[in-house]
């Protein structure tokens, strides 16, 4: 697998789930076990392929695109089929193969109501292609296709296998994201024409000299901003998220938090910033302020929740706020932190949703008041896991959550591209408020743990037989649990891979 020539690897990785989904349709409907095993096989094989690719990746040139495919696609509009992967994409790409694999394993024993494994897993595979594709597409049109592609399977996943308000949530999710994405498309088009290059190539556009006037960039950025900010989601575009998360089946939530939200921030970093640096510069303080509002606000909303899944969902708003704060810093450290926060949030919150799902499987409720505490006594291993992941999520150093949060604040103290001169005071304020947000974050997680984990189990559950972490859960979760620790201890696992690519990115922004 030569990273210079083996473009087929990415194509194969993206195609495998699709082919798998098609083949799965041929399996008989009644043999559910076989369907589930087949899904594990497909996701496993594609994950293995991506792992092999990760090994073959030339880390000394992580700033350059590798495994490139660049062929004509739609001549009429000059769209090309341009895939490639660099240090920024690699961790996210990896994650978008790991999580479906784990989800498939988890689903073998935890298929959400009302069953239909073929449809469920087929949609998941389709979703996988969409998610992974966004991270390696280097043509705006191709990116947009993948970006949009995730909507449909996720819509069905929420709508068919979700909770009681699934229909509302699924429609809301779909429409919200769609709304933003079409604005984004308009901006893409505007850039396409304004650049004079008649090219959709992200690399070319990034390297192009100033596209349009500052005013143009501001407006074009606004369009992309809407698209990506809704996906992230940034305050105040976040309201689809709690509903979608709360209602989605466990695996849906995991993938939603683990990968889907990342597409938004990735879009900012990969597309909006380098292509429209002037617009980005104009928007940076806005992004920063909204990000910090999101941090504080998300935490406050978490404090008001009694539904544990909804709490985790709102925590995403806060965590993604840190990621956006990193982006708002417009410097290398900020982008690094944002990307790290992305990955960390994917792993941690994905894991938290696994836990919340299993919690619901056991207690048949997600209301913390009804659960009433004592879980550490009732199902100790499970309680320990919840504590571990929560603590990671609240940003404890040594676990994955810390680096993104700290890095974002650290980067924001000295924002790049001249922002420090014009908005230095504002950014200092942002850092301080973001830091206060960490306290609130700690607050709601501790409070959650107190209400769920600690104390003695109420009578309702005292005599109930509740299974502790099962074998399949261990299998599905262990990689994430390890990653949470590994990323915390070896931040260079991500920082190091990204470093060169981020430098290249910033250079294209004139930073």
């Amino acid at each position, binding site marked *: 697998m030569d990273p210079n020539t083996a473009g087929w690897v990415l194509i194969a990785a993206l195609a495998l789930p699709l082919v798998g989904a098609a083949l799965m349709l041929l399996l008989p409907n009644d043999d559910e076990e076989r369907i589930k095993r087949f899904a594990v096989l497909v996701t496993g094989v594609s994950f293995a392929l991506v792992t092999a690719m990760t090994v073959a990746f030339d880390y000394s040139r992580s700033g350059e695109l590798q495994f490139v495919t660049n062929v004509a696609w739609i*001549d*009429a509009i000059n769209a090309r089929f341009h895939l490639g992967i660099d240090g920024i994409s690699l961790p996210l790409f990896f994650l978008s193969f790991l999580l479906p694999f784990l989800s498939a394993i988890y689903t073998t024993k935890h298929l959400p109501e009302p069953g239909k494994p073929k449809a469920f897993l087929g949609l998941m595979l389709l979703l996988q292609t969409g998610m992974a594709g966004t991270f390696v597409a280097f043509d705006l049109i191709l990116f947009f296709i*993948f970006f949009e592609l995730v*909507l449909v399977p996720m819509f069905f996943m929420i*709508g*068919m296998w979700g909770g009681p308000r699934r229909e509302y949530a699924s429609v809301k999710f779909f*429409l919200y994201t769609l709304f933003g994405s079409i604005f984004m498309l308009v901006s893409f*088009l*505007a850039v396409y024409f304004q650049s004079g290059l008649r090219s959709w190539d992200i690399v070319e556009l990034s390297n192009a000299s100033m596209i349009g006037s500052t005013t143009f960039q501001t407006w074009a950025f606004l369009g992309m901003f809407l698209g990506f900010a809704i996906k992230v989601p940034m305050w105040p575009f976040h309201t689809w998220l709690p509903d979608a998360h709360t209602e989605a089946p466990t695996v849906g939530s995991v993938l939603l938090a683990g990968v889907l939200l990342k597409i938004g921030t990735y879009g900012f970093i990969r597309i909006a910033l380098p292509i429209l640096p002037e617009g980005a510069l104009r928007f940076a303080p806005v992004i920063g302020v909204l990000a910090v509002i999101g941090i504080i606000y998300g935490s406050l909303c978490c404090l008001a929740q009694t539904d544990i899944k909804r709490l985790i969902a709102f925590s995403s708003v806060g965590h993604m706020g840190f990621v956006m704060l990193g982006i708002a810093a417009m410097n290398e450290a900020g982008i690094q932190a944002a990307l790290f926060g992305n990955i960390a949030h994917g792993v941690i919150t994905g894991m938290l949703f696994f836990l919340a799902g299993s919690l619901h499987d056991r207690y048949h409720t997600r209301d913390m008041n009804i659960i009433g505490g004592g879980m550490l006594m009732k199902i100790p291993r499970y309680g320990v896991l919840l504590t571990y992941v929560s603590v990671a999520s609240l940003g404890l150093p040594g676990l994955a959550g810390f680096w993104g949060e700290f890095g974002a604040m650290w980067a924001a103290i000295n924002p790049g591209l001249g922002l420090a001169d014009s908005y230095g005071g504002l950014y200092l304020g942002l850092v301080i408020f973001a830091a206060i947000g960490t306290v609130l974050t700690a607050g709601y997680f501790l409070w959650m743990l107190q209400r769920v984990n600690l104390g003695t189990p109420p009578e309702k559950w005292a005599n109930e037989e509740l299974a502790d972490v099962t074998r399949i859960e261990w299998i599905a979760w262990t990689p994430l649990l390890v990653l949470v620790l590994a990323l915390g201890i070896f931040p260079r696992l991500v920082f190091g891979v990204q470093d060169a690519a981020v430098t290249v990115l910033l250079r294209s922004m004139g930073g």
Partner: protein
Amino acid sequence: MPIDFLAIAPEIALAVTALVVLAADLSLRGSAKQLVNPLAAIGTLVALYFVARLWGDERTTFAGTFVIDSFALAFKALFLLVLLAVLGISWRFFAEGRYFQGEYYFLLVTAFIGMLLMPSARDLLLLFVALETVSVPAFVMVGLRKRDLYSSEAALKFFLIGVLSVALMLLGMSFVYGFTGVTGLDAIAAAIGGLVAAGTVEPLLLAAVLLIIVGFGFKISAVPFHFWAPDTYAGSPMPVTAMLAVASKAAGFAGLAIVSFIAFQPLADVWAPILGVVAIITMTVGNLGALQQRDLIRLLAFSSVAQAGYILLPFGVARGGSGMLDAAVNAGAFRAVLFYLAAYAVMNIGAFGVAIGVSRRTGLRAIGDYAGLGARSPMLAAAMTVFMLSLGGAPLTVGLWAKFAILEALTVDVTTFGLVLAGALVINSVIAFFYYLKVIRLMWMVEPAADAPALQPGANLTLVVASLAAATLVLGVLPGLLSDATSIVTFAAVR
């Protein structure tokens, strides 16, 4: 002046087909009458052959009133393919419904003669006759469900609004004639160009232009000329509805495109903003109207109104000038229209096909009847899902590319008005998904009613629907198959 018969060969082929169909109908008895359907299909294929034969040619005949260019051929191909699809979904429907089959097919084919003429016509008179050739058979076809009060009413409404529109259009044409003294589109453009240059454009001329647009506005069901559409769609036999919603609308757009981009191009700076506003109102009204429908056909009717609004959008950025950029913007606009129409044809006929399949022998057509369709007929439900997603503009369906084409046309030159139009499209796309998703949701996420009758869509309908769904998806992945064809489209020898 010799007549270039090859140039009108497709029309001649259809005319012959129409007459053969009529004759065959007289000689066939009983269930054998349904064989006129394949007969018509064969004629259509012959016409299609001639279109293919002409592909790439540019010809002019009948004293410049009839032109063969890539624009005309693309539309002709589109119409003929639509005709094939309509024939496909008509077969069972009319064979089982004990209609006047032969006459239906005759009228259908005749209407398509008018459509084929439309994009080739370069003369107001021919345009008018072609338009009427589409309309008059359509009036009858809508009323074909003779014992059905709804059908009769639908026909009357369609007819009255139709003749009112055509009368207004004729009034406009008469004034245009009064100002220019000619009826040829190029000549009109030249004359108006002179008036514009001289700065002596009378308001009456503008009014006349608008009145002509009204005639096409009726065909494409733009607001406020759309009122007939929901009622007529609901009352017509479903294949006729599909024909009206797709082919007739496409013909209207073809006509609108040639009058606006050829004859009235010098005045584009005046009519473009108005059409843009009309487009916004049209799609908004269409989408809002569709939101509350309980009859799927009416929903599709309002949806088609909204779609007309989308297709009308590129007209909003048309340019009156003759610079390079102006030409690029205009070319982008009518190419987008063509692309969208083609995509729209695929997905909308597909949607009607599913509706026919569901209602066959059951009469089901309320949206509520689609509850649990995913369980009752996964194939139909899956196809309907594809069509709904495509109509909404979801990725990997051709609908996305259609929207994309429109947006592309709007942003060729970034203007404030273009962005406003784009923004309107965005917002409307989202509103539209409310009802498209409603259908999808019902099909997959709601249990079917306990007493829901079994569905028997029929083999050939299934085939048509499946191939349309496949086309929707294939074009969704490889829009180049379609856009390569539409992107080269241009008007031959404009002046």
